[in-house]
Each structure stands twice: as C-alpha cells, then as structure tokens.
C-alpha cells in the first residue's frame, strides 16, 4: 500500500497542471461546503441565543387557550396563577390594539411586562424612567414602519376585557434594537400593571409566563410548560431544512469536481495501458494495480483537502471574527441577523474531508475496475481494449 501511495504521489506531481486543475476544483468545493456549513451553524447558534435572550427565556408556561401562531387566540387565551413570582415566573400579557400614526391605522399587539423583570433583554426598565403619562417601548422595525421616533406621541385604541373600545395617547419612551422580528414588528411593549389597568384585568393575568430558571416541566392545570429546548426546536428544524437545500447546491459542485477526477482516471487508464501491463508482468496482482490507480485518484481529494484548508483557513478565520453582513432584513419571520458569525467545528472539517475523500475514492475506483478485466499481453502491446 505504501508503494501505491508513493507511486500515486509521484504520478500526480508529475502530471503537473492537470493535477492542480483537478485539485483546485475539488478544493473550491471543499471550501464552499465548509463555509456554508459554518454559516448555517453560526446562524443557528446566534438565532437560538437571540431567541432565548429576547423572547423565550428559560422556558414558558403558556395558557392552553393561547397559540402563538394563531392571533385569534389572543382574545381568550389568558389566565392567572397564584403568586407566579414565587415560582420564578414573569407574567407577559398580550392584547390586540391599533395605533394611528399620521392618520394611518396600524394593527398591533400590546405586550405587557414588568419593568423590573430580568428574564428578557427587552429594555422595559426604560418605562420606569419615562416622565410620560403612558410610556411605551417599540422595536426599530416597528418604529420604521410606523414612522415613529423616541418622544413621539400617537393615539392607541384597544378593547377592555368586556370588549369595549378605549383610546388614549401613548408616548414612545424608547426604541430597542433586536434581531427578533417576532418581538418587534407590530408590537408595543408597556408596563404590565398599566395593561392590567386599561383592560380591567386582574393582577398577574397573563397570556404566558416566562421562567427565570430552567425547568424540565411544570404541572399547572389549564397551562402547558414548554422548556427552552422545545421553544427553539424550530430553529434547528429550519437550519436542517436549509441544509438540505444547500446540499443540493454543493452536491452539484462536488459532482463537477468528481466528474473531472473520473475523466482524468478514464484517460489515465487508457493512456497508461502499457504501464498497467508492465505492473502485471512484474507480478503485481490486478487488485494491487487497481489499488494503485484508485489511490492515485483519491489522492486528488487529499491534496484538495490540504489546499482547501490552507487557502480556506484565512478566509474562515476572517469571517468568523468579523461576521458576514446580511443587510437590512424584512420585518417578519424568525430571527433575522444583520451579521452572521460562522462557526467551524472540528467535526465539520473532519466530516467534510471524509466526504471529499470517500467520494473521490469511489469515482477513482469505478474506472479502475476496468484494469481487472484487461489482458496483460494486449496491455503490454498498448492495444485498445
């Protein structure tokens, strides 16, 4: 086997440009696979972190009538548990309302939360410092779409617990910057005590409670506990879906690179029939000759992995440090990060290298199989077979 590697190495170096062209194409595929996987992992990690910090906390105890994907459940999907603070639960109440900036109607969700809370990064503490009669907090997406800025006053309309309309002027006490559109677009944050007051709801009434500490489960009648892992599971699912799409893309790229190796192998076996005949005449078994040619083909992938790592490392390191700007993101959907920091794990590098080497070995072996059927005499004569 050592001989096979030695011969393969010499042959490839001797082939010059032909070898390096194959290596470059394969190395490009290698870099792209690692890069894209890194980007995907980076987005996944960041999106999860942001979602935990800004939206889900350590877990949520949701009212059974509330479905976050169905806005029609907000009206009735709320309730109350006794002394939630003692259980490390922070109440969040959601109601529907509208605001009227410049005479245009904006449907919004009014989110009430205690300004002293510590479970989320949403800066509701700013509400405590405001001198306005009715201070509220909005995200930058909401501010942009409604053309609102800090200090602006706008009329807000809502319904109390009986369904009677009420309206008053609110003041934008602060604008926060979050990557999570779900807590920003169309959302108005306010002191939950104020929301209880204006809707006539009793203290501790909530759509859901956010847990300050990690819990596996909670057994409260009429409520369902969702732990942190289940609340961010959709991000993993999305990343997985994205990975499938990406696999098609770099599968095609890898196929092109492997096709080049396959072609090279076919040509190599055709042109080096005398050499093959000589090997057999010298006493090498056909299996060994096949092995020599297969190793030669798979060595492209080893070269490509080395070149890929050498050429890709500065690139990977640079992007891992500075991140990749994703530009302005639309104000809906899940975490949309303006800058993604790719994450490259050892597992990712090893698995990608293995993928490239194994696939290159397979495509090298396929044409080499022909050697096993060759007549050594004809091969020595260089006859076409």
């Amino acid at each position, binding site marked *: 086997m050592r001989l096979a590697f030695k011969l393969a190495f010499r042959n490839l170096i001797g082939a010059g440009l032909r070898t390096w062209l194959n290596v470059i194409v394969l190395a490009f595929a290698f870099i792209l696979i690692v890069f894209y996987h890194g980007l995907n992992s980076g987005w996944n990690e960041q999106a999860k972190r942001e979602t935990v910090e800004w939206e889900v906390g350590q877990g949520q105890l949701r009212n059974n009538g509330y479905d976050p994907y169905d*806005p*029609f459940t*907000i*009206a*009735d999907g709320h309730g109350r548990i006794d002394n939630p603070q003692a259980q490390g639960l922070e109440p969040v109440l959601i109601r*529907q309302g*509208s605001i*009227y900036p*410049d*005479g*245009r*109607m904006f449907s919004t969700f009014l989110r009430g939360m205690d300004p002293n809370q510590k479970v989320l990064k949403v800066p509701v503490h700013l509400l405590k410092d405001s001198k306005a009669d009715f201070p509220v907090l909005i995200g930058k997406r909401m501010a942009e779409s409604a053309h609102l800025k800090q200090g602006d006053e706008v*009329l807000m*309309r809502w319904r*109390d617990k*009986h*369904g*009677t*309309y*009420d*309206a*008053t002027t609110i003041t934008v006490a602060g604008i926060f910057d979050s990557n999570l559109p779900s807590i920003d677009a169309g959302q108005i944050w306010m002191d939950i005590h104020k929301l209880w007051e204006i809707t006539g709801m009793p203290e501790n009434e909530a759509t859901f409670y956010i847990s300050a500490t990690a819990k596996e489960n909670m057994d409260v009648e009429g409520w369902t506990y969702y732990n942190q892992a289940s609340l961010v599971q959709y991000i993993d699912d999305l990343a997985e879906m994205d990975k499938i799409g990406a696999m098609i893309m770099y599968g095609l790229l890898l196929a092109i690179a492997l096709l080049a190796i396959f072609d090279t192998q076919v040509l190599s076996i055709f042109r080096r029939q005398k050499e093959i005949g000589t090997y057999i005449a010298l006493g090498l078994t056909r299996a060994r000759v096949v092995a020599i040619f297969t190793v030669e083909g798979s060595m492209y992938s080893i070269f490509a992995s080395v070149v890929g790592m050498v050429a890709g490392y500065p690139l990977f390191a640079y992007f891992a440090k500075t991140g990749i700007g994703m530009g302005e993101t639309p104000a809906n959907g899940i975490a949309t990060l303006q800058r993604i920091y790719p994450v490259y794990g050892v597992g990712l590098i090893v698995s990608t290298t293995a993928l490239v080497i194994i696939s290159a070995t397979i495509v090298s072996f396929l044409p080499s199989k022909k050697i096993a059927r060759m007549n050594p005499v004809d091969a020595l004569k260089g006859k076409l077979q």
Partner: protein
Amino acid sequence: MKKTALFTIIGLIAMSFMLPTGPSASQIIQKVDDNMSSDTRITESQMIIHGRRNSRTITSIGYSRGKYDNFTEYLAPEREKGTKMLKLKDYLWIYSPSSDRTIQLSGHMLRQSVMGSDLSYEDMMEDRKLLDIYNAEIEGEEEVDGKKVWRLALTAKVDDATYHSRKLWVEQERFVPLKEDLFAKSGQLLKRTVMSDIKKVDGKWYPHKMNYKDMLKDGQGTDFVVTKMQINVPIADEVFNKSNLKK
C-alpha cells in the same frame, strides 16, 4: 283671599299638565326604532369605499327579516361578485365563490373590516336594542342641515357595549337619525355616521345615504347608498337558509 290662592295653585297645576311637553330620550329612540324597522326589507345598495388613492364601489342586494336575519349577495365588481353573507342571530357565514367555500366568522374575525370599508362585521352584527345597552338622555336641541334635531347622549349601562357612549342627532319632524358619534371609554371620538337623503318608503322615513367614518383614520370613510328599497314584502324562508349561500 284664601280661596283665590287655592284656585290659583290648582289652576297652575292643571295648566302644567296641559302644556305640550317633548318626548323623553327613550321615547325618541323608540320612535326612531319604530320608524327604521320593518318586518322585511329588500335593499339594493352601493358601498363606496374611499381609499387613500382611489375609491371602489361594491354593489349588493340585501334581504332582511326582523332584527336578526340578514342575507346579502354582492353583485359587482367582478372580484366580489357572487360573494354571499348570511347572518342568523349571532352567527355569520360568508361564502366565497372563488374558493367555493363557506366560512363562519366568529370571535375576533368579526372585528375585521367588511371588504376593506370603515365598517366591521361586528358593527353589522350588533342587533341589541339601543335602550337595552344604553341609558339615554336629551342633551339639547340644535339644527343639522336646517332641520331641528334632538341631541341625545347615550351611556352604556352594560359592561359589554362595544362603544361606551354615543351621541345621536335625531330629526324632530320625522324621527330619523341624521348623525351618530361613537366614543371610547376615555371619551375619544372613534366613529361617526352621517345619514342623509331621507326618503319615505311605504310610510316610513329612511336615510338613503350613510357615511361611516373611522375618525382616527384619515380619509373620507365609506358611503353606503341605497339605490332601491322595498319594505314589508314577502321573502321566502329559503333566502335565510345556509343552503342559499352556495346556490
């Protein structure tokens, strides 16, 4: 002397009973209700929805029976043609020909706007009598479009009134409302309805043009123009049947 004083007092009391006094707020609302309601009604109308850039007109024919049953079929434009709406008491169904499906609107779906107008389905669904929901009092008398009107103030006496208070301007001569303002709990004016083009239909006075306006939004609101109205005409029971939606 004593006798003279006694006769004077009795005379004054008797005169006070003989003096013409106006109707109470409840009586006015009752009379408005009597004037505006009928056993059955067939109305051909146009709903003109004024948008920011342009206006669109939706033509429909509506059948109503009593206070609770209503059937509306949209006739134009092409996009809305064939859409039907059936309201029976507290239930509302909408049939859409494009999907060939009937859906029942309930809960918060009723708070959506009707065809993008300033009217919500809930506004259309409210069929409780005003006097069941509000305490009414006469605030004063004034003139609207040259007509003498009473200005009535209505304040909710139940918890679940959509609007906490209303103001109603009722024409004194024909007992027809000419204007209505709807207020939030805070006193903020939310919606205004202006009625005009009052015509007599089978002995009852009825406004043939209504403008509904969400006062918090810019724009001209939504006009509802009655082009033809028949009252107390027989309407087949099948009209108010769910099976009529898909016909």
